[in-house]
């Protein structure tokens, strides 16, 4: 694939991630846990990781976080979403690269979701200087199982067709 085509496709993915993030912030989740989200943007990041590679996924993840905080206008949320998505991307990369024989896309996505939680809660507890926020982590991880499964399944079907289109 030539360079300009890749550039256009990556910017489309960033726009898609931004749209999904805004969409999911409009969906109220019937969960008790505050701050639990579907993590739809992870579909885009994980698809990029699988179809293109690590560098491209990093670009998409960072740009999506920045454009989302620009769109919603909250600067503090930039730290949370950036740390969470970067940590989850690194975890997903290592699992996908080295352990892909053991875990399917669903497993990779669940690990990404769990590390996203860990990153966000760490940032929250550092910013609030309160270690007790970690008591949210078990509940968040349980919710992550369902959202991560859903995201992994969506990514599986998305990448199946994306790979066909681009002959990668």
């Amino acid at each position, binding site marked *: 694939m030539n360079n300009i085509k890749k550039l256009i496709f990556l910017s489309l993915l960033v726009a898609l991630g931004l749209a999904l993030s805004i969409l999911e912030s409009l969906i109220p989740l019937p969960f008790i846990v505050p701050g639990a989200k579907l993590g739809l943007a992870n579909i885009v990041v994980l698809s990029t990781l699988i179809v293109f590679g690590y560098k491209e996924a990093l670009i998409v993840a960072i740009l999506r976080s920045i454009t989302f905080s620009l769109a919603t206008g909250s600067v503090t949320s930039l730290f949370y979403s950036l740390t969470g998505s970067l940590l989850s991307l690194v975890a997903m990369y290592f699992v996908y690269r080295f352990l892909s024989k053991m875990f399917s896309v669903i*497993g990779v996505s669940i690990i990404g979701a769990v590390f996203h939680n860990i990153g966000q809660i760490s940032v929250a507890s550092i910013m609030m*200087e*309160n270690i007790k926020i970690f*008591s949210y982590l*078990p509940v968040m*991880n349980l919710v992550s199982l369902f959202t991560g499964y859903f995201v992994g399944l969506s990514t599986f079907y998305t990448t199946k067709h994306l790979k066909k289109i681009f002959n990668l």
Partner: protein
Amino acid sequence: MTKWDKYLIFFIILSSIIGLSIVKSDISKSDYKYIRITVNGKVIKKITFGKNMIGKTIDIRTKYGYNKIEIGEGKVRVIDADCPDKLDVKQGWISKPGEIIVCLPNKLTIEIVGEKKANDKIDDVSY
């Protein structure tokens, strides 16, 4: 789904349950409880529960934002806030020690803190 996926899901469920039970057991040890309000890591208010406090509302105005909390019988909640998503309001009442309401935009945490019984402390130091 491979079998490792299932192991992973099982492991996460197990660790979450263990984590939850640790949090719970930490709660049940305490006897006397009070509310601790923290803004940006600094404790700004400690409120003890009492009959005269039931139904009282307290305004918390800091340079980070505005929150209004209501105190009930051994419980507390946020009823108004100027943060955009109002997750702290949606969370509702908290009553057990160790439970916590967090408002990230306003850097506010409202915790219920439990003090251990006086007897326990003596047991800890006497050999």
